[in-house]
């Protein structure tokens, strides 16, 4: 589903943010991306949804080489990728329902159809009773669930979550992670960037560790969990 071959990313005058990244994520896989702050986790995710362009190397997403993608084709790629951020990126003056429907407006989905899909998605994330609430009246966990609903309402094949629990307390963190696991169980490929080791230990999923722009380890869930537990 996601493949990277000798990918580099550097900004002029700075050392490379990512160096010689080689990666293969299968369809329907769940992958943790971990590493210290500044290791390149966010940049790697941005490369996948064309938020940044690789300086060198090839990136295949769903079999398509996005290293050479035309600017005008990027929106169509993004419609297959859901993105979740630590800072939610919700529209504060729109209701929960409108925030989720926002992703369908872009596709020109008629209002009635969109409303039905939004309701279904809000039910999936357990927020059907908050459809007409404003985002700022929700808890952090609820806001993040709205973001996940928005990311999933287009039925994307890939879900990228960059520190999705970074602003949440431990109980809400588990709530969100369980939701991401459910999404993955439905067949969506999920990549979660986190520096929270307890999540890796708890969920035991494939873990890629980035340090100074290099992938320094790529372990299956059990091995990664053991290593995290050992400290």
């Amino acid at each position: 589903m996601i493949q990277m071959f000798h990918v580099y990313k550097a900004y002029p005058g700075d050392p490379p943010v990512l160096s010689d990244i080689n990666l293969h994520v299968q369809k329907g896989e769940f992958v943790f991306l971990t590493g210290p702050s500044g290791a390149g986790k966010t940049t790697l995710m941005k490369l996948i949804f064309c938020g940044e362009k690789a300086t060198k190397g090839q990136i295949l997403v769903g079999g398509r080489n996005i290293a050479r993608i035309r600017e005008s084709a990027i929106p169509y790629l993004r419609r297959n990728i859901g993105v979740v951020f630590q800072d939610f990126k919700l529209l504060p003056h729109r209701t929960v329902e409108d925030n989720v429907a926002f992703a369908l407006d872009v596709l020109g989905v008629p209002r009635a159809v969109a409303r039905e899909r939004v309701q279904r998605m809000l039910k999936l994330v357990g927020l059907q009773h908050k459809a007409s609430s404003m985002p700022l009246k929700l808890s952090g966990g609820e806001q993040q669930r709205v973001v996940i609903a928005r990311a999933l309402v287009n039925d994307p094949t890939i879900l990228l979550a960059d520190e999705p629990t970074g602003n949440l307390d431990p109980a809400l963190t588990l709530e969100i992670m369980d939701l991401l696991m459910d999404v993955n169980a439905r067949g969506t490929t999920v990549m979660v960037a986190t520096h929270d080791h307890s999540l890796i230990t708890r969920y035991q999923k494939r873990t890629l560790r980035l340090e100074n722009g290099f992938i320094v380890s790529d372990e299956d869930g059990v091995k990664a969990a053991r290593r995290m537990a050992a400290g």
Partner: protein
Amino acid sequence: MSVFAKTAYFWRSAASGLRHAPFIHFVAVTTIAIAIFSAGLAQATGRMVEALIGSLGGEVQVTVYLSPELDEEGAAVLRERMVALSGGRANLVPPRAALERLATELGDLGEALAQLPENPLPPSLELEVPQERRTPGALKALAQQLRAMPGVTGVDYGEEAVERLSAISKALRYGGWVAFAVVLLATVVIVSATLQLAIYARRGEIEIQKLVGATDRFVKAPFLIEGFLQGLLGAGVALAGLLAFERLAGPGLASLFSFLVGPGGMVPLLEPRIALELLAAGCGLGLGGSFIAVGRFLRV
């Protein structure tokens, strides 16, 4: 995917943009309204000046001086040729009639003319040319043709006055265009700047749109509609202002300028065709300003 749903979204989004940044849009609408109001006034003034020049042009008379040796029959032949050439009317003024007219014009001094041993005035033809030939160019060409006729010794049509009037008209017209271009440019810049502020205020929304797969055109369309609506509103306000101005100041201006244009000679400030043109100009201004704003600022 539905084009109708997308179009509905664009209009909803544009209306919401107008509602959420009322001050920014108020500035743009007011600027467009002032520009269109000024353009409407300038347009009416221009038409008024044209009408004035047209009425003054009616005073233009071509006098053709004939050779004193020309007999009455020869003068009559020339008169026929000139009527055919100019398409107007010609009146033959014999030397004696010309002298009497001069004596009348000179009043008491006219008596001195009686002391002259012989009449120095030549016979002449007074030519009244039709309206369409009263332009400086056409008059000049006609005068050249008349001068070339045998038996004609001179042609006078107040060349200097006609050309001066024409120059004033031209200067007013070009001055009006330059002033309009300056106002137009300033308006486009202001409208574009206000829309850039509106775009900046909604950068969060734009970022999310891009993340969920919106194309550039999708992001830009509501802002272009906002510009169009600003133009429509601005032009509407300007037209209302022009109507009010005509109602309030029209009678006063008509009496003020009646000595120039005559009673009922004032041109109406707004005609349906001009109102439509001004409305279209307003929409064009709004659309142009927003087009520049999204082009420069919305590199998404």
